[in-house]
Every structure is written in structure tokens, then in C-alpha cells.
């Protein structure tokens, strides 16, 4: 695509980078049918290439962005399905982040929007505050009808039950001889919503010979503010993490930095780009999803395999952002579960960080669509690897969704995931899953 920036504009490295990215887009349009919002609205401006054109015009023109541009860019999920399908590999993730930052800096949203965004950006990355906010929100739920519609929508998304467990800095020794020493990102919102994910992850890693450290000074990865265009806040969070892990790596050594919320993992693997420091690049290079590390180590033989039919939902951040697709499936199979893929698995569930709070209508359409696809696989258990997806899917499925790490922990000797307590599970059946047909199926 041809661009038309002035020399003065291109002197800004951020614009220069955007210019390079914009020029790679040649409008093939493979991305359109892979984009959830385009498929829902069929509006070119809700497609990646439409948005790329809007970004080009916005950045070239400078000044205040047009409300229409902001509207369509806000509707982007940053699911990165477009990047998977793009034939010329347009670096969309950095372009849309740049555009979001530009909007945040140059566009004055209506007061209610500003307040809501500021509230989310402040509360979500702070787990204790988020926990208190959810408790307060639950008390307010009976009076929701008297509240403004945005607040009402937000309150409705507070899960009825949460199991917070906010971890302090600590070292968890390996159960047997130590094979690896890893840091775990304890995270932010996840700790307030579901403390068992970290607990299961730590048990699992210990059981597989990993010493796990929650490093002093690490916290929110910065992903939530970054995708709201609040780049400076994101950088502060990221820098704090990089400092904490760099210190840990220098003093005691680290084989990996483990993430069990894949939305965070995508941002952390890209810390080098965000902060442009050697330490940030090193931290990014050390970052691994929990399933990547476990897959490398090899899952211990499950003592009591439970062949439940597990529908595995790929978080976009894993399948499109990090291309971690086979490892969780392989691990769940190794743990004895029957893994089934969900139709239209390349599509986002509508969670997308704060998207379901800021774009509730689109998020609901996608959530219902995804829930219908999951239901169609008649699973015993639904699993995924990102807290946002877990919350969103549970809302539209009307049933608990567990984290892959919780299932692997259970299979290798840990407790039943709390979300499944009291949930009647059918006797596991030997059913055909997506593995190849049996040799005696048909005439082979």
C-alpha cells in the first residue's frame, strides 16, 4: 500500500514503524473472512484491511482522529486471526497498538468512556483492588437496574463466584531433584478471579522438577493498559517485571518465565519491542506458556487416567499470538483425556482483555457463537489457557470452564479443579475424537 507521510512525520520512530507496516499491506483480503468482526458486520471498516486503511489515513492526516475511525478501531479485538491468515505477514499487532496509543493521545472520548477506561486501567492490573471492586459490585448487583447501562453491563459480568488467591513473593521448591528453575508471572486479574490456576500451575511445575519463584516486584504484565492505548502505563508495568526477572536471572538463574494467562504471554514475549532494552529482550526470550515448558519436560504418566471428553478452546493469544497450538492438546492427551477441537476454532470468543467490558454487544455475539460451537462437541469438560476466555466462555456456556493446567494437575496427582466440584461428570466413554480414525474403521 502506498503511504504519504511527510519527512517530519517519519522522523518520529513510531510513525516510521507504522509506515513500514502499512506499506506491506497489499489488500489481498484473505484477512477479511478470518476476522470475527468483519464476519459479523460485513463492514469493510470492521475488517483488518479496512482498519489498516483507517489507520493510514489517521496517521497521515495527524491531529484529532475522526470518531468513525475510533469507532472501528475500538471494535478490533486484537485477536490477531488476521496475522495468521495474512499472506504477506503484515505486522498488524504493532500497527493496531500504535493506533490505539495515538487515539489515546489525540482523541477526547466522551466523559463516561474516559471514566470507564480509567477505572478499568487502574483496577484490573491491581488484584487486591479488583477483588474488592468485585465484592462491592456483587453487593450492587441487586440495584443494577437503577444504574447507567454501561455500569449495569459491567456488573452483569462479575462472576457469581471467584476464588481469589493473591500470591506473595516466594520460592516453591521442586518436589524431587530440580530440573529447572522458573519464574511464574502471578498476574493481576487472574489472581482475583481464580487463585487455583496459579496453585495448580505451581504444583504441576514442582511435580515436574521445577523450582518456582514468584519474583519480588513482578506484577501485571502491562497487556491490559497496552491494548487500551495507555502505552506509558504498560511500559511501567513491563519495566517493573523485566527488572524483577532480570535480577532473579542474574542472581539465581532462570530457565524460563512461565505464563499461564496467554494474553499476558503474548505481550511478555514482545517485551523487547515494547521497551527496546536488552533485559527486556532477554525476558521476552525466556517467556514460555506453561504448556510449552511442560511439553518440553514431558508429562509424567498419569496414575489414574480419566478419559473425559475435553473440548479445548484455543485462546487467540495462544493460537495467533504465540502459535502455541499443539502442546496443550498433546499434554491433555498424554494426561489421558480425549481432546476435541471446537469448530471455527480460529475465531475469538469475544473476551479479548477488556473488550467484553468495552464492546459488550460484539463480545456477546461472539461469546454466544463460540458457546454454541463448544456445545456442539458435547464435551464433558471445557478447557482453555487464558482466564479471560474462561470467564467469557463460562458466562455464555452456563457451565464451568477450567484451565489446562488445572486438568493436568488433576491428572498427575493434584486435586479436582474446584470449578468441577459438584459438577456431575458422566462415566468416560470411548468415543471417536479428532485423532485419526481407528484402523478398523471402514475398509483400510
Amino acid at each position, binding site marked *: 500500500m502506498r503511504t504519504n507521510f511527510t519527512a517530519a512525520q517519519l522522523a518520529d520512530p513510531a510513525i516510521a514503524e507504522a509506515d513500514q507496516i502499512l*506499506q*506491506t499491506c497489499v489488500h489481498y483480503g*484473505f484477512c477479511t473472512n478470518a476476522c470475527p468482526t468483519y464476519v459479523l458486520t*460485513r463492514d469493510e*471498516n470492521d475488517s483488518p484491511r*479496512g482498519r489498516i486503511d483507517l489507520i493510514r489515513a489517521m496517521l497521515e492526516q495527524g491531529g484529532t482522529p475522526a470518531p468513525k475511525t475510533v469507532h472501528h478501531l475500538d471494535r478490533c479485538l486484537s485477536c490477531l486471526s488476521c496475522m495468521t491468515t495474512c499472506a504477506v505477514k503484515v505486522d498488524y499487532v504493532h500497527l493496531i497498538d500504535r493506533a490505539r496509543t495515538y487515539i489515546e493521545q489525540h482523541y477526547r472520548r466522551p466523559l463516561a468512556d474516559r471514566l470507564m477506561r480509567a477505572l478499568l486501567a487502574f483496577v484490573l492490573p491491581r488484584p487486591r483492588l479488583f477483588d474488592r471492586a468485585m465484592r462491592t459490585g456483587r453487593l450492587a448487583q441487586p440495584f443494577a437496574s437503577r444504574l447507567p447501562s454501561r455500569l449495569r453491563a459491567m456488573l452483569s459480568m462479575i462472576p457469581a463466584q471467584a476464588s481469589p488467591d493473591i500470591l506473595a513473593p516466594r520460592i516453591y521448591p521442586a518436589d524431587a531433584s530440580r530440573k529447572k528453575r522458573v519464574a511464574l508471572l502471578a498476574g493481576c486479574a487472574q489472581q482475583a478471579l481464580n487463585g487455583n490456576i496459579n496453585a495448580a500451575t505451581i504444583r504441576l511445575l514442582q511435580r515436574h522438577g521445577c523450582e518456582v519463584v514468584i519474583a519480588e516486584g513482578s506484577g501485571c504484565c502491562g497487556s491490559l493498559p497496552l491494548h487500551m492505548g495507555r502505552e506509558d502505563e504498560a511500559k511501567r508495568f513491563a519495566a517493573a517485571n523485566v527488572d524483577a526477572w532480570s535480577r532473579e536471572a542474574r542472581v539465581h538463574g532462570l530457565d524460563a518465565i512461565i505464563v499461564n494467562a496467554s494474553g499476558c504471554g503474548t505481550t511478555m514475549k514482545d517485551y523487547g519491542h515494547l521497551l527496546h532494552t536488552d533485559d527486556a529482550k532477554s525476558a521476552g526470550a525466556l517467556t514460555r506458556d506453561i504448556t510449552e515448558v511442560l511439553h518440553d519436560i514431558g508429562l509424567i504418566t498419569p496414575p489414574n487416567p480419566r478419559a473425559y471428553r475435553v473440548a479445548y478452546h484455543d485462546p487467540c493469544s495462544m493460537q495467533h499470538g504465540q502459535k502455541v497450538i499443539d502442546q496443550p492438546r498433546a499434554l491433555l492427551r498424554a494426561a489421558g483425556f480425549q481432546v476435541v*477441537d471446537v*469448530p471455527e476454532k480460529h475465531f475469538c470468543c469475544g473476551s479479548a482483555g477488556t473488550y467484553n467490558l468495552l464492546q459488550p454487544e460484539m463480545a456477546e455475539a461472539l461469546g454466544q457463537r463460540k458457546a454454541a460451537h463448544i456445545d456442539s462437541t458435547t464435551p464433558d469438560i471445557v478447557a482453555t489457557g487464558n482466564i479471560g476466555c474462561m470467564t467469557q466462555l463460562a458466562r455464555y456456556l452456563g457451565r464451568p470452564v477450567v484451565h489446562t493446567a488445572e486438568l493436568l494437575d488433576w491428572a498427575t496427582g493434584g486435586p479436582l479443579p474446584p470449578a468441577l466440584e459438584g459438577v456431575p461428570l458422566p462415566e468416560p466413554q470411548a468415543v471417536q475424537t*479428532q485423532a485419526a480414525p481407528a484402523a478398523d474403521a471402514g475398509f483400510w
Partner: protein
Amino acid sequence: MMSANFDAFFNEIQSKLGTDAVNRSDETLTRYGENTMPGGDRRPAGVVYPASTAEVQTIVRAANAHKVPLYPVSTGNNIGLGSRSASKAGQVIVDLGRKMNRILEINDRLAYCVVEPGVTYQAITDELMRRGGQLMLDVTSGPPQGGPLGNALDKGAGYTPYFDHFGFACGMEVVLGNGEVLRTGDGSIDSDKLVNWHTSKYSFGPILDGLFTQSNYGIVTRMGFWLMPRPPAVQSFHFTFPDDDDLEEVIELCRPLKMSNFVPTLFRVANDLYLSASEGQSKEYGSGKAFSTEGRRALREHFGLGAWNISGAFYGPNEAAMAPMIQRVRDHFMKSGKARYIDHEQAKSIPTLQVAINAFSGTPSLGELGLLKWRPGGGNIWFTPGTPMDGKIANEFQHLCRKIYEDHGFDYTVMNVCGARFARGLHVITFNREDADESKRADACYRAMAKAFAERGVFVGRAPLDYHDMHFAQTMPGFRQACTAIKQALDPNGVIAPGRYGIK
């Protein structure tokens, strides 16, 4: 067509199908007009979105009443052949993909599916997997969001024993240019009980299905496709040959294996650039010349490829059962003394060969699309002549094409997809569409090849949008008269895609 009344047409569609059924926004018209051809974009007059066969009839009847030219697209992924562009600017795109994207039926016992135009390869594969993965649909190595209906109607193909997408289609529903509905094959019986619509093609009466391939006589709204039992194991095999002229021997080696059907898949015989182009951009772009011999050699070394790279596969209950067959094929190819063998496991770690494995396994994948970025600027045209499975002739055609590519400053990029008697040569010309001179050369290159092959009695398979008229003019007069007469009979006002494949 004269005196088209677009406003009256769009008003009628909006009043009958709802405001949501029409889109005339500036962005939409711009993007639906875009394509990758050297001849430029073709901005349509509007886009309409039918939700059913009845709504397609409403659109076609309104088009007849208001003399408005339509141009139907299914999933709109026809990149390199026209994208979603209409034959001419000012036609109305009938986008069947937005709402008519339902899988209407899957018959697990008789192994067929029935789909609407917007159903994608990925959607069918997902649904078959959800049902337990006992069946598979032959797919292209193109985009997973492309669809079987549009592909079959354009005579597209895959690589498994069910590669012939039109041949393995059975039973259509078509809205003709006059607005009437036609059911083909055994669906033509005047009955509510259509037992054999999607199981038999050849009962009573003439076979009309072929009329709706590469033509403009109707809008196909439903189509059946036969599905292949999914094998428990797929075992691919691959060979590389070092020299360009080895193609002659390669073709001779492939032919008997297909003639006897010992190898169930088609052979993918791809040259070095076809496979390595998907992994990066040309480092020599800008020289104005074809990619150098030294550059090709370096790429081959880097990717572990040959000048020619052959892929095929066996199906069976398990790897062990196929091992003897693999060994026979291996012995067959290795006797040349020039072949290098790459086994299935090795090939899985070579992305360009994984594409072949996916294709043989009925798995939609994106890997091959990367070759469209070989040069910047987003231009590409597919040139698709064929060769008999005769090594000498195939090699002559290679020399002919390679020279024309080089004379025009382009990089010879081709895959021959080989059956028993015939191989389709998928040639791609990637060029910088933002460079006027390069676009002009790409156009000249295509025309030169089309002319040279026509002089040798060889036609193209699928034609890029810019060249429909040119190729139609290469047909014998009787063919053209017949096509025109059929158009008159089925679409007397010429409302459906006038000019598509040259038929007006």
C-alpha cells in the same frame, strides 16, 4: 446492456430483502473492486447479500426488470484470478458468502455433504471433525476460507483421489438468468422426495451441471460434494531432483505410478521457487531481471530442495502397512541416480513440504499463500496451461515458459500437478502492482505465454479476470456460437456476470 436503472434496482432489493441486504458504502465499493491483476480495479455499483435461493431469485428478477448486471461471488477468495472483482466495473456484486453459508446436510453413511456457496473448506473440515473425523473433503492448498462450491464451479482441484472438485460434485440447485430454479442430476425429477440428488449424476436426461462451470448462465445456490473416508494414516514421500531438465525424467517416472493408480494422490512436482517463495521475499527484487541461477541454487541449499521437488502420499491403516509401497516408490525414483529421498517425518519439519502433507490429508492450510509475497506490491496472476504426461513435451513447455518469464524479467515459479495422462501447470507471476512498468510487463508476459501455448494447441484451465475475453477469442467459432446461444436461452437479458469467461 443498456439503460440500467440502479436506483430502482437497489430500492426494490431493499424493500423486498431489507436494508441490510444492500451495501453501497464507499469503502465497500472500493474494496470489492480490488484485485491483483495488472488491468486495474473494477469498482462495482453495489453489493447485495441474499440469504436464500428465493432471495437470489428476487435479485435476479429485479436485475432483469431494471437491466442491472450482476456478478455473484461465493467466499471471495479467488486471489490471482480476480478476487471479488466483477468482470466489468459497474456490475452489482451478489455476495453469497455473507448469509448463504450453511452446511445443509452431511450424510455420514453415503459420504456426501451439501453446502451453500459461502461454506468454506475450514467450516466443512471443522464439522467433519466434530462428527468424529471419519470423512474428509478434498481441499486446495489455497486459503482455508475459500470454499468448495466456488472452486468447483471454476474447475479448481486438490490433490487426493477426490482431487477433481467438479467431478466429485453431485447435484446442484441453480437460479438461472431468467430467475427460474433448476435442479441438476437426479434432482431434476419433479418430486419432493429427492433420494438420489447428491448420490447420482447420470440418470435421465442431459447432464447440465457442466454448463455452470466457468460461465455465467446461472447462480448456483446449493451443491453436493462427495466425501472421502478419512484414512487412519497418511504417509507422504518426497524426492528432489537437482537440474531443471530433470523434469523430463520426473514426468516419465510419475506417469506409470498414476496410470496404474498405485499412488492414490496426484503428484505435486514443484520447482525450487514455487516452494521457497512461500518462505520469504526475493532478495534480488529490483534488479529488473529474473531471479538468478546462483540465487536459485542458494535457495535450494538453504531449504534442502531440488530444482524439482516431487510429493505424493499413500493411505492406509498404519505406517507399517504402507512401508512396502513407500519402498517400491522409492526404488522406482532412486533408479534414476539423481533423486534424493525425503521421508514423511523429515518432510513434516520442512514447511514447504508440510503444505503437501496437509493437502494430501484434507487439511486446509495457509502455508502456500506465502508465495504471493515473493515480490512486493501485491500483483499476481495465475497462468494454468497443461501438458500431457510426456516428459519430452513437459520439458519443452518448461523451456518455453521459463524463457518468456525471463524475457519479461520475472521469476519462473511453477508446480505441475500430475495425474495419469495430464498435468496442470500452476504458474504464478508475482509482480509489483504499484509499479506501472512492472504491471505492464506482467501483462505482456501472461499474454505472450497464452499466445505461445495456444499456438501449440494448449489451453489454460482457469483464466484470470483480465484475460477472459482474450481466451474466449482463442476458442473455435462453433464453441463461441454455442456459448452465446445458451446465454440467450438461459439469461436472455444477460444479467448474470456479462463477460465472465468471455460469454456475453
